[in-house]
């Protein structure tokens, strides 16, 4: 049994230690907002925060997450996360929406480190998150908008 803390809730999962955290979150805990896209840290759809840092949960063994604070899209609630979600709705960012949990987790982590990111900062922080629908232009605008919201 591996003990996990996800969105401040304790869980115990019966998983082999090398199983990626993604499948523990989705299939065992039942939080499906975190998505599977590639399984090799190429698309960012599975991004969660582990102790506040963005992590590709498809390539992160569940055993390494034990005892750490894991946040998924469902648990994203503090000020910056709320601002990001608000900006995402205001600018109607999602198309199919499948990549967007990961985009929002990455954007929130970026804004925590850099409340006023430049376009270059956005390029650097967000290029690990693919969007096949091509919502990039709105993602960029929404990050700037969320940044404004957290300044005021």
């Amino acid at each position, binding site marked *: 049994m591996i003990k996990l803390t996800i969105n401040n809730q304790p869980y115990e999962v019966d998983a082999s230690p090398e199983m990626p955290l993604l499948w523990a979150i989705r299939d065992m805990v039942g939080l*499906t907002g975190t998505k*599977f*896209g590639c399984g090799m840290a190429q*698309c960012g759809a599975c991004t969660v925060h582990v102790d506040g840092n963005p992590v590709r949960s498809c390539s992160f063994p569940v055993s390494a997450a034990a005892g750490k604070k894991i946040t998924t899209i469902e648990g994203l609630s503090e000020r910056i996360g709320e601002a990001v979600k608000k900006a995402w709705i205001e600018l*109607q960012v999602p198309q*199919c*929406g499948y990549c967007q949990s990961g985009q929002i987790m990455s954007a929130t982590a970026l804004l925590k480190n850099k409340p006023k990111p430049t376009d270059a900062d956005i390029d650097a922080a967000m290029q690990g998150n693919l969007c096949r629908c*091509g919502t*990039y232009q*709105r993602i960029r605008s929404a990050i700037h908008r969320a940044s404004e919201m957290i300044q005021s």
Partner: protein
Amino acid sequence: MANQLTNIDRRNFLRLTGITGAGLVLGLSAHADGVATVENLAAAGESFELTPYVLIEKSGQITIFNTKPEIGQGTFQSIPALIAEELEVSLDKVTIQHTGGEKKFGGAQFSGGSASVRTSYTSLRKVGASAREMLITAAATHWNVPVSECYASDAKVFHRPSGKSLGYGELAEAAARVEVPKEPRLKDPKDFTILGKPSPRPDVPLKVNGTAQFGIDVAVPDMVYASIERCPVLGSKLVSYDDSAAKKVKGVVAVEKCERIHGVYRSEGVAVIAETYWAALQGRKALKVTWDYQGNDKFNTKTYEQSLRDASKQEGAVEHSQGDFDKTFAEAPVKLEAFYETPIVSHSPIEPMNCVASWKDDSLEIWTSTQVPGRIMDDFTKTYGIAPEKLKIHVMFNGGGFGRRLYPDYVHEAVQLTRKIGRPVKSIWTREDDTRMGPFRPMTFSAMKGALSADGKAIAFQHKVISPTLDMRKDYDKTKADGTMTEGISEQKYEIANMKNLYVHHYLHLPLAAWRAVTSTTLAFSHECFIDEMAVKAKKDPMAFRLGMLTKESDTKNLLNKLKEVSHWDKPLPAGWGRGVAQYEFFAGLGGFVVEVSKKGTGIKIEKVYAAIDLGTVVNPDTVEAQVQGAAVMALTAAVKSGITFENGQTVQSNYHNNQLIRINEMPKVEVHILANGGPRIKGVGEPGLPPFAPALCNAIYAATGKRIRRLPFDINKIV
């Protein structure tokens, strides 16, 4: 708040409503002549030979049924909006439910061909308008006042002189007994509160907080997971397999064969079924499978491409002919020829193919991300011998469609597996499965010929397409010109007197498929780049050359004039820059781009992108802008990233590291202009923004560098 209803038994729900007359159920009856009329389902009792779209319950709850699966294109808003506008309700007060292929909802339960809004615009407004008029009549009767003194607003009917009102829920039962108006009065577009305005999509909040349910998110009790090993050499046969090691993996419960069905392309795979997906993946690694490659292990794209070039020497079937091309071309003072090539590409939606299926006794239940619930209902009842009322399809949000989810091959596999093991099965393709197995957009090669008069006017034009077909039907006739593979080449509005367009079919054994904007995605490239070559040969400005061939009024002419204006076409660019233009009209609609590029080292930087899309009528401009921007990104990926290639019968690419997509840092800004000046034809949104992007880009590169790109993909960082 709109939400997804997936767990209620919709059929019983409707029947209950219909029988008790508890509410107003309105639908469209599609007649043989294709004309749809609005009919009252509640009055129709149990027969239900109609397609119900709107349901009003006594409680005031309004449900709008959406036959167009949401794949990111915004039909979760645009389709219900057509009804809600006329019904005078705001979408946030409505429950929107995807239909699951039920006969009552008619034969057009699919998302594809950018068809959703353009084919439903008037008929669905009539549904809403009829409901509104029936509710108003019910209220007027109740108050004993003239109908003319009543109006509907915000899900209520008001009596203007007295100000009294009744909610739709209170009126639903009486309204259901009102005769359905033959010709309901549609609102004057100037009174629209939803249509034509940028409107928020009801699915967006769900996609921002993680609660939107995609196919891959479905879980049902007692469900097991499947991962399927298919032969890496496409077109092989399964000989045998040894599952002894696989079965020893903890959590593995069964190993079974299943068949992937994609038209004439059939292939057997071996599924490892386990209590967790991870265990299924480990079990799959432990499988030992023997395949018969059927000679397909010798296939590679390089050789195949050469065979396409060779096939281009064939005359081909005539797709379209006007004037006398052969004679004019032979005698013309100025002529030119060019050969264009494009690659195979993958759809690669970020949500991999998946399906949950549950076979119990003689009933089948399917939960999946699909573009085609109607087709699944038709095909699966036949293939598996299930009565239509025993098949229930839950259409989930699609994590991308792009044409991939027009094909339910992945649904077939899951259905066979649940039937074999007697438990609900969730089958998930890995990204590697998705990348390697297709179905793929085929390549097209194009042999172009053009002739000019001495004063530089286009007098003859030929586009010959050489390609495999994406038509996977058994009875495909390869001697005929294939309209899908020559899409749009004879639809351009350029006035060229002598034209002969041709098609040469060349067989390819791979599973092939439509891809967003289908064959226009490759043919627009050859077509519009070659028009540019003709302009250069004629020593004319490419925009002026095009407009010179558009003397008659047309949407194309308006579109190009719009692009000319918004891009400041005639304003000189900085040194080292170039601009290019392209447009393409095809069944889905009409779009165009002006792209500006600059030289950057050995490569090219895209500086500015101006897009125009002609719709005639627009439902949600905000969604249109997003669709065109997204289409440009997808087109750029197809133009400059690897595409799909084969060696030894196997797909070379496997995941996003070697089948790359454009990322945020590579995405230029796209400024979108929507033309919505009415006009007889409403055009599509999802696809027309794609085809003209690559030719506009390549024409801009020519203008900046003098280098003519005739083969996709190309390396944008190594042009000169």
